[in-house]
């Protein structure tokens, strides 16, 4: 019986481990309740490679901004947030704006645990933090030009074409504003 109990424990460990692994590789929802030191960017075109992003860190309760600057994007897909979030803040809100993307924000509690995953919405050609008819016009006027206009080349694939137009048409929305409601700074490399 004692051995049978051990076997049950072993099976339990395996099942729990498998469930943890399964959850670990799932795409996390846009906003997490636990903020990781690393933010991973997902569901982006392979050619899209931002070098930097605008990052604002704000205490969720005190509303005090502790970081407001451009930060590097590692390997085109990762932001290391650990150096920008003070440990004393238990709950923080981070605001992020990537090139050609809508701004977004995430509120989370410390301590920071698992990596944070987010899928940015691309298509903000005009840089006004909204994807609308103005962006569509901007892409249409720059299509077929050589060399490609960097601002209108949303997916950074060297040509402004149907793909860029598709991003604008699919992602029409307004992004999250800065906490001070001022315009986002330029994030283009």
């Amino acid at each position: 019986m004692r051995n049978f109990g051990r076997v049950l424990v072993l099976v339990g460990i395996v099942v729990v481990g498998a469930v943890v692994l399964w959850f670990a590789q799932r795409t996390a929802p846009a906003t997490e309740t636990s903020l990781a030191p690393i933010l991973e960017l997902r569901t982006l075109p392979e050619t899209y490679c931002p070098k930097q992003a605008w990052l604002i860190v704000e205490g969720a309760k005190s509303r005090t901004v502790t970081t407001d600057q451009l930060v590097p994007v590692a390997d085109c897909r990762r932001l290391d947030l650990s150096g920008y979030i003070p440990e004393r803040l238990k709950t923080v809100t981070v605001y992020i704006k990537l090139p050609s993307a809508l701004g977004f924000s995430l509120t989370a509690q410390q301590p920071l645990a698992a990596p944070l995953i987010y899928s940015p919405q691309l298509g903000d050609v005009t840089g006004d933090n909204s994807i609308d008819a103005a962006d569509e016009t901007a892409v249409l006027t720059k299509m077929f030009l050589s060399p490609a206009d960097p601002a209108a080349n949303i997916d950074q694939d060297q040509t402004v074409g149907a793909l860029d137009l598709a991003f604008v048409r699919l992602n029409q929305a307004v992004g999250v504003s800065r906490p001070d409601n001022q315009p986002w700074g330029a994030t283009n490399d």
Partner: protein
Amino acid sequence: MTSRRHSTFSDRFLLSFLVILTVLLLAGSAILQRIVFKADQVSTAVFLSPATVNTSTQTEFGSSWRADFSALATVVTVQLELTYDPALLELTQAIPTEQWQTKTFSQTGGELRWVLVPTESEGLSVKVRGIVEFGKLTFKSLGDGLVTLQLSQANTQIAALDPDDGFRPYNAVSSVQNSVVTIGGTLAAGENIQLDQAETTAPVGETVEETTVGGPQRLLSQELMIGPDSVLAFIRLQYASPLKIQFGQTRALGSVVEATSLSRFQVVRLSGLTPGTAYFYQVTVDSPEKTSHLTSRLQSFQTNGVSDGPVVAATSQLALAAGIAKKSVLLYASPRDAAGNTVTSAPLMAKIVSGSASTTPFIDSGGHQQTAITSELAGAQKVRVQVFHQTTLLGERTIAFDPNLAELQPESAASLAPFQPSRTITLALAGIGLLILLLGWLFIRLARAK
């Protein structure tokens, strides 16, 4: 006594080992299947139909902008860039088909640029499959000569959604095919066909032996599935590479279709052909590094006619996109009558007779029908599939599915780069490894306690 205790221990040990091993395998395969096995993106061949036009001076003729989708796809936007000789041709009309509307259009000095989006009633996207027509172009011939309606590979795009990647748009165009217009003259369509040019493999420079694995690129096999107005060419190469097929009614060829994907097994469609007509064709393969250039011999085929049946198994044809695949492969079928003419609207059915796999219903794709065979096992297996028209067995094929199948490719700087697994796969493998270590340790303790 000792013998009984030993026997009890063995039974429990075996039971626990089997239970844990099963759970581990189930969990591991579920995770890896979710991570690794993603459906292939739909690939599309864009072409103008007809592929060849014979006309006289000061005459209007039409040309359709079409695309052949290998599977069901959701299309958001499409764009076309077409060049031609403005001294010989004048574009008089460009009309999108019912589901599409013009977003932008420009025509300057023999350059046509056209962008279409779905009509308001269609919404933001249109679901398409098989051969789809986007628009009709009408040209007027101005003088005698030969003109190529040339599609730009870079600026002819179809933005489709990838359901396996958060519905991210991607360019579905894998090949484009030009169209040739002959004005005021007749080419020698009936000239004698002589297959006297041997296949040649001509390395560019002297570095080919150093930059390839096991010798230069080879054309291992080629098979044609001939229809009335299109032909599917099944090409198997020694190494994965894009390729090009030039074809035409004379030895001068003139039309070209490109397969841009990097694969050993290529399926290329030659479209816009005239029924019952002889064509020449030639395959050329340039390695991605431009270190070798292969030209096949000049060969020929004759398109067949259209028939209402009945379907005869002896003349019907089946062909696989590849005999070995990782997870999924397309099976093509051409039902024919006793005279070898293609029987249109002949319903076909695929039946798996051995192995575990699923099939999609056959769809008509320009005189050929196709179905996707997908393995339902995580491991390797052989699947035998039979194709029926009503109760008539047209033939059967065997497919080897191997999830670990690796493409044999010439060495390059890219292929020599160290393997960099994604963070998720690393995490999953590390987790499984830790579990196995923990289990091993506990088992040793259990055995010692006994």
